């Protein structure tokens, strides 16, 4: 005699402790096993692309801050590079070094957020979250020295960086670079060999390399599936061709690999920052130009390696002070398309873990 069962549909609603932002998933369970997933998003849509059509090129920098709010510097960088490509605006050397330093600092901060919340969902109470945020505070203090704000930085402008770093930035940066590897060792000691973490994340949510490439995944999601593809090396921009660093990859594409890739990327970022500090020369940080940038009519696409993947801007200009169309290729949105393949067949607890390891940021997904 078989027992009659039927699947149950639950709404992991927009307000939930473990969806990264306002994200709604309609999950259909058979017992505890997930059989169908329907993501619903758009709760954070603010019309960034439409607003961009009514703002001047410099004002859009403040809009791009708020896309992926945990990695504002790289958002700025992607946008500003596109405008420079469109308008053929040169960038001084020192500005490029400052941009790379800011991007790598932002990468560390963003990966700290991602790791902290990933382990919070695994159930460590808030211990690891507090450790990660304690380190992130140091990065945010450095940003406050650079540009007066911690999260929504608006640091970059078409033609360079907005303002040079103050005198007390460099000693603080040296202290940070010196102390950070010890803190990362701490984090790794707490997690990387922990049997419970391994049991919860090993072989969970495996993304095969073929599927990763077919679904245009990028960033740690792609590299966790052992595809060695990093825009900083594949299509080098700024001064990344003058610094030496490795691109870490995972071995099998499960959640644990994605987490390990982020930790190793943090270590590589520190080494990049150290090399930039050694190589930087005094000089101007901004190309002087008219206040209202007017690129010639045309279009351009350029992308950077944001902490979550390939962030690209496609700007169409009609020769005026505002773009005609500004399209944002956000990595979290594209990475999210493979959620169903990752999750189906696993249990509810795994759904949370897999979603945390893919690391989406709803500011980017919804724009």
């Amino acid at each position, binding site marked *: 005699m078989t027992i009659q069962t039927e699947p149950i549909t639950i709404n992991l609603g927009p307000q939930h402790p473990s969806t990264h932002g306002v994200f709604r998933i309609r999950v259909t369970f058979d017992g505890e096993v997930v059989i169908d997933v329907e993501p619903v998003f758009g709760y954070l849509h603010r019309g960034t692309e439409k607003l961009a059509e009514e703002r001047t090129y410099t004002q859009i920098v403040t809009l791009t801050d708020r896309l992926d709010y945990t990695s504002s510097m790289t958002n700025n960088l992607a946008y500003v590079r596109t405008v420079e490509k469109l308008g053929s605006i040169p960038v001084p050397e020192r500005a490029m070094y400052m941009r790379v330093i800011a991007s790598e600092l932002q990468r560390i901060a963003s990966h700290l957020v991602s790791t902290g919340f990933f382990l919070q969902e695994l159930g460590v109470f808030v211990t690891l979250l507090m450790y990660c945020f304690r380190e992130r505070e140091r990065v945010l*203090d450095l940003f*406050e020295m650079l540009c*007066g*704000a911690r999260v929504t930085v608006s640091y970059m402008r078409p033609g360079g960086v907005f303002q040079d770093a*103050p005198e007390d930035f460099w000693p603080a940066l040296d202290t940070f670079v010196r102390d950070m590897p010890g803190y990362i060792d*701490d984090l790794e*000691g*707490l997690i990387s060999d922990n*049997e419970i973490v391994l049991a919860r994340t090993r072989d969970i949510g495996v993304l095969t390399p073929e599927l990763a490439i077919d679904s245009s995944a990028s960033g740690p999601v792609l590299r966790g599936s052992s595809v060695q593809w990093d825009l900083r090396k594949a299509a080098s921009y700024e001064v990344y061709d003058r610094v030496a660093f490795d691109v870490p990859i995972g071995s099998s594409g499960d959640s644990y690999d994605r987490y390990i890739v982020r930790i190793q990327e943090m270590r590589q970022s520190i080494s990049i920052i150290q090399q930039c500090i050694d190589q930087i020369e005094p000089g101007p940080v901004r190309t002087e130009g*008219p206040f209202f940038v007017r690129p010639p009519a045309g279009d351009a696409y350029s992308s950077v390696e944001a902490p979550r993947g390939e962030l690209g801007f496609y700007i169409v200009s009609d020769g005026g002070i505002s773009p005609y169309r500004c399209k944002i290729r956000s990595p979290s949105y594209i990475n999210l398309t493979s959620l169903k393949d990752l999750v189906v067949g696993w249990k509810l607890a795994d759904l949370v873990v897999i979603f945390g390891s893919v690391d989406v940021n709803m500011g980017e997904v919804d724009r």
Partner: protein
Amino acid sequence: MYGFGMAKGMAVTMKNLLVPGRMFTVHQYPSRRIGPLGLAKRSGVNVVSFTIRNPVQVLKAIAGMVSVEDSDPRHPRFRGEEFTWYEERCTGCASCAKYCPLGIIRIVTDPNGQAVQEGQNYGIEVFDMDIGRCMFCGLCVEACPYDALHMGSGFEESTYRRSELVIDVERLKSAPKRPSTWFRPQLEQKGYNPQTGVELGWREVGRHEQPTLAEQQDRWSKR
């Protein structure tokens, strides 16, 4: 394996508990409890003589009823939630209003306009900034050609009504003048710190005298 990884994790947590340097500097905003030792240190005498002079306060401190202000010190470049405006420098050109991405600055100058000649200032009637909507991006400060508008350095601007969040020209005139050094390299070269420094007058904040018409055209209307 065999639980060694878990034991390593436990060691990390214990290290963070015991080693004193790991405790992040916690600033208990707005005020924190202070004990008798801290009170004595702040007044610069040793504990015993402090106790003899102020016994009641020491007793209160032991019971945990004495508190002092505490907050995280901010960098001089911090973009605060208020604005420092020098009416002697402002010409009413409204570049800040044009440049604001949100359009929260409203400037109404002397509607007559007949008596204004080249090189004179407009008389300012209304200069409203709505910090309820402001995102403190600082583009207005970047735009000001006369260094009349600067970011402020405070952040305690909350009010009970949304209408009180609009800063009008009277409030701008009477606010304490502690400009942040953001995008003002001349202030940074002087080593000015708005949190601890004195208020600056209008002659001390400019990097140059008023820009010429040619410079203005160069900046704003060059194609």
